[in-house]
């Protein structure tokens, strides 16, 4: 069964169509990379898949949940999210943030410290999030994916702001996730590392221009 299937979905903000009619099917255990020019609607599509935006026309399901109904909340529990902006509570440290998130979702609290070590934040894991550098904040999100192991990974330009080591780590993470059965959707403006074998989705003007694997 498809992980997501969208049928002519329109998403608007005010009177502006963020997505102008998206029809798309995502297959399980495939990695997709969305490309397109600035303002093409990549971030908006990811938000739609995460259940963060409600369609104003069209219909669709993601992970079996209807995105037009209140099942969106249920859907959100099953996806992982990495965005442009800082996530989590700015006043709490990475450890505290991840503990809160793990407890509320029932994820494994014991996995937090190793995950933070793994992404190289052992030293800075007790500093409030707002004091971390751009790349360090991204790494906290990576650690959360390791703890959470979601079914559907949604990542907005995950390679931005990471140094070489961080990028290798991310690629490794993505490859393991894919082999263990997760579906990954990410956006990117640059080339992906060769070890990532991804189907490409090209967006133009709020719609899908081309899907190629």
């Amino acid at each position, binding site marked *: 069964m498809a992980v997501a299937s969208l049928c002519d979905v*329109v998403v*608007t*903000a*005010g*009177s*502006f*169509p963020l997505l*102008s*009619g998206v029809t798309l099917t995502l297959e399980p255990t495939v990695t997709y990379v969305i490309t*397109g*020019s600035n*303002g*093409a609607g990549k971030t908006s599509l990811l938000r739609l898949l995460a259940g963060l935006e*409600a369609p*104003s026309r069209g219909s669709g399901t993601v992970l079996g949940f209807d995105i037009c109904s*209140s099942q969106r909340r249920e859907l959100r529990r099953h996806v992982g999210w990495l965005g442009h902006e800082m996530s989590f509570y700015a006043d709490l440290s990475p450890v505290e943030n991840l503990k809160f998130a793990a407890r509320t979702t029932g994820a494994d609290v014991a996995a937090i410290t190793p995950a933070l070590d793994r992404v190289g934040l052992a030293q800075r894991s007790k500093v409030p999030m707002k004091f971390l550098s751009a790349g360090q904040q991204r790494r906290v999100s990576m650690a959360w994916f390791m703890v959470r192991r979601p079914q559907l990974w949604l990542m907005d330009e995950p390679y931005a702001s990471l140094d070489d080591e961080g990028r290798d780590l991310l690629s490794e993470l993505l490859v393991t996730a894919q082999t263990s059965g997760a579906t990954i959707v990410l956006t990117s403006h640059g080339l992906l590392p060769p070890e990532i074998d991804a189907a490409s989705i*090209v967006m*133009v*003007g*709020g*719609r899908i*221009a081309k899907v190629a694997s």
Partner: protein
Amino acid sequence: MKLLIRRALGPLALASSVATFVMGYFITPPDKVQGDLARLVYIHPAEAWVALYLSFGTATIASALYLWPRTRSMVADRVAEAAVEVATLFIGLTLLTGSIWGRPTWGVWWVWDARLTSTAVLGVLMLGYLALRRANDDPQVRAKRSAVFAILTAVNIPIIHFSVMWWKTLHQGATVFTENRDLKIHGSMAWTLLLSFLAFSLNFAWMVRARYRIADREAGQRDSDLDAALVARRTETAS
């Protein structure tokens, strides 16, 4: 039936208003104590009834209908908005005519009476509702938030009402309103009073309908704007 309502509402509202005016101004006798001032009784209570009960009742029911998933529709949202907007107008008029009445009767524009205070609080709550609508752009979000706020306000009305009532009885003796009750026993006056309620209710219905239709047309406009915007968006190039 629908057609009848559509055709008849405006003329009926107008006719009843004119009739109230004629009856109130020319036919009924002036009051012994208050003189011509007492003629405000054909305006003020009816305004208050529309502002507090009729319009806010409408808004609350419409908001509840919106929040209930099975009956959710933008129609309910628009009706609620129209009702509150009209209610704000009427509450303003109630306060205004009440103050005008109060100045000669009590010697001041305002007293801290239960009814007055709760009316004022409700008026500010309605302004809050309108402010809330203006602070959100997204129609869905706006509809939900303002519906929840309307329901909260409705829950608040009895609480405000009782708190203010009890609060007043502790501090103040008899109210002014009882004195005027005997006005009603005069035949022509009672009929005129009744007529004024009918007239204001009809006017309310007519105004809400007009406001609703404006909102509806705006929504239709937005819809076709969206179609145009969709076309424009789809023709963006890969650049």
